[in-house]
């Protein structure tokens, strides 16, 4: 899978060109090419061990590549040490210096740059105001809550006006409600400052909600690079389809194939999918059809439907209800908006399932 190059050459802030990294015999990154546009928020998303953190460390200079090149603002970075790269980095555990106060932590990067005292104090105050931590200057990191520590870490990375902001799973230690508000806040600050940002996460929800573009990674490669909506709606391969968002995998049969559109039979129903991913398949070949839970609709069993089954589990989620429906030995996840489904489709009820026929993706059967 080739990542699409939808970033203009001169607008590229960070460019990875065929970057390869090996740890002994293990290939952590296999000729990864990725361009991050200026002011763009790009997320590296993937399961642990996919190489996303390695790619970030290569950008930071904590590791050196075994092949390929990394450039920031057009300058080759391969042999430039971290401290000359002008990056800002936020760590998973924040890595605030425990022996320094909040203000000293934020001032650290300005001291290394020999910024004069008066200007330094002003910029530290501005940065702390930006992350809403005024009045905390003299606290030590251990006297702060997790969310406050994170704000200090952000202020410390931002105050030096980095050419690129690197974020290594910064929200993983926060509880859910705090995480959501910090995500929104970080994104607002990032937009306001127009900061080029590379964000690493294994949380696909976080990736979809925050990014301009998402690079879905697995086994040292970028499997798909695109806007969140593209990655969600038109996954490039079965891995992306099952990793990003909830998905149901169903076995179908190819009925007809035209240049751009293929028709797949699923039980009695016919489903239109993009033909691109099925090119070269013979008619009546087996295909894997991926259907999002919200593309299913539950109907009474006597109504026309694609599949029949019975409700085996109800998961009430407040705004919607997730139903697990068993069909021919397989469990399907069906999302029903609102709350009516709780009463309308009780446990054990026989139901029919309809499919919204034009928004699924299909790949040759594995």
């Amino acid at each position, binding site marked *: 899978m080739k990542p699409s190059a939808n970033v203009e050459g001169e607008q590229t802030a960070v460019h990875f060109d065929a970057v390869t990294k090996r740890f002994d015999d293990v290939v952590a990154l296999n000729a990864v090419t990725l361009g991050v546009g200026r002011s763009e928020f790009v997320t590296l998303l993937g399961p642990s061990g996919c190489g996303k953190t390695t790619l970030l460390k290569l950008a930071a200079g904590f590791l050196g590549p075994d092949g390929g090149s990394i450039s920031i603002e057009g300058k080759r970075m391969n042999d430039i040490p971290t401290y000359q790269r002008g990056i800002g980095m936020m760590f998973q555990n924040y*890595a605030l210096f425990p022996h320094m106060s909040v203000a000293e932590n934020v001032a650290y990067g300005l001291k290394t740059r020999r910024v004069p005292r008066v200007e330094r104090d002003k910029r530290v105050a501005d940065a702390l105001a930006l992350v809403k931590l005024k009045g905390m200057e003299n606290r030590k990191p251990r006297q702060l809550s997790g969310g406050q520590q994170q704000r200090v870490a952000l202020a410390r990375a931002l105050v030096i006006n980095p050419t690129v902001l690197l974020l290594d799973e910064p929200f993983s230690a926060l509880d859910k409600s705090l995480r959501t508000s910090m995500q929104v806040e970080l994104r607002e600050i990032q937009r306001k400052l127009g900061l080029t940002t590379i964000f690493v996460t294994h949380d696909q929800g976080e990736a979809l909600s925050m990014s301009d573009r998402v690079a879905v990674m697995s086994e040292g490669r970028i499997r798909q690079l695109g806007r969140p909506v593209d990655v969600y709606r038109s996954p490039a391969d079965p891995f992306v389809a099952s990793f990003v968002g909830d998905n149901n995998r169903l076995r179908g049969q190819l009925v007809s194939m035209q240049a751009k559109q293929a028709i797949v039979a699923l039980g009695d129903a016919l489903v239109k999918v993009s033909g691109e991913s099925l090119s070269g398949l013979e008619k009546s070949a087996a295909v894997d059809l991926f259907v999002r839970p919200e593309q299913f609709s539950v109907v009474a069993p006597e109504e026309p439907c694609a599949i029949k089954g019975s409700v085996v589990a109800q998961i009430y989620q407040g705004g919607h209800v997730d139903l697990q429906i068993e069909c021919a030995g397989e469990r399907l996840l069906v999302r029903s908006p609102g709350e009516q489904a709780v009463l309308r489709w009780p446990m054990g009820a026989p139901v029919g399932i309809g499919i919204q026929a034009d928004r699924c993706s299909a790949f040759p059967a594995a």
Partner: protein
Amino acid sequence: MNQQPFLRIFTAPATLCAIGFLAAMVAVLQYSLRAYVPGSLDPGGFTLANFADLLKPLYARVFLDTVVVCAMTAVVTLIVGYPLAYALVRVEQPVLRSILLVIVVTPLFLGEVVRTYAWIIVLGNNGFINSLLMSLGIIGKPLQLMFTPFGVVVALVHVTLPVMVIMLAAGLSHIDRDYSRAAESLGAGPIRVFLTVTLPLSLPGVVAGTTTAFAWTFSAFATPQLIGGGRVNMISNLVYQLGFSSFNFPFAATLCVAGLALTALVLGLLQLASRPLQKIEVH
């Protein structure tokens, strides 16, 4: 006791040892308060005269010398040990790390007497250093290295080094690498990272290592005995002379008690001085 059924059995050997030590300590304390009866191995009646004798210049001098030698040893060991400990923690090649570890730890298995004899061979008038310097024509006659505080400190540093390195390495290895990475990302070069982040965060380990080294050398016997040769006296040597040459057990016991008290005092002061550091959370 239901939750930890083996607790009593497991702690029994340690308890027995502790009782033994405690009994010995009580005996020493008791002896230190007895009068010395010349010509007799049995002590006389209770008295505080022994403690008053401690203030005599001869004995006060030995205490002072001991503290000075211990302090010098601790400082030199720290200076020599820190780079070793740093290398031990940060070196990434497994082979090099093993070699370092062997170099650092091996002296522990040689015993103080063997190591001290090795230093006699190195420091003697016809020893390694003097023969080398003389054959190079740098000096005309041998330097006096044996029977000097310098020689004693050198040998004591060697004896103490493994303990210091192990304690420092333990402290350094607990410092999360992300702290130095964060400093680098903020524009700090290697020297600044070390001075502003690694070194301050390793101070608790430095205090622990230095105090241990100090206490470790305070009771040194074989090294000052053999290398000091009677001209550099530390408390242990004085205890030995009084106890086993003059058979003045009461005063030997008094010296022990005073030495113990002095060690506790110095360690207490060091702990107090380093209290602000204890609050640093390195993790």
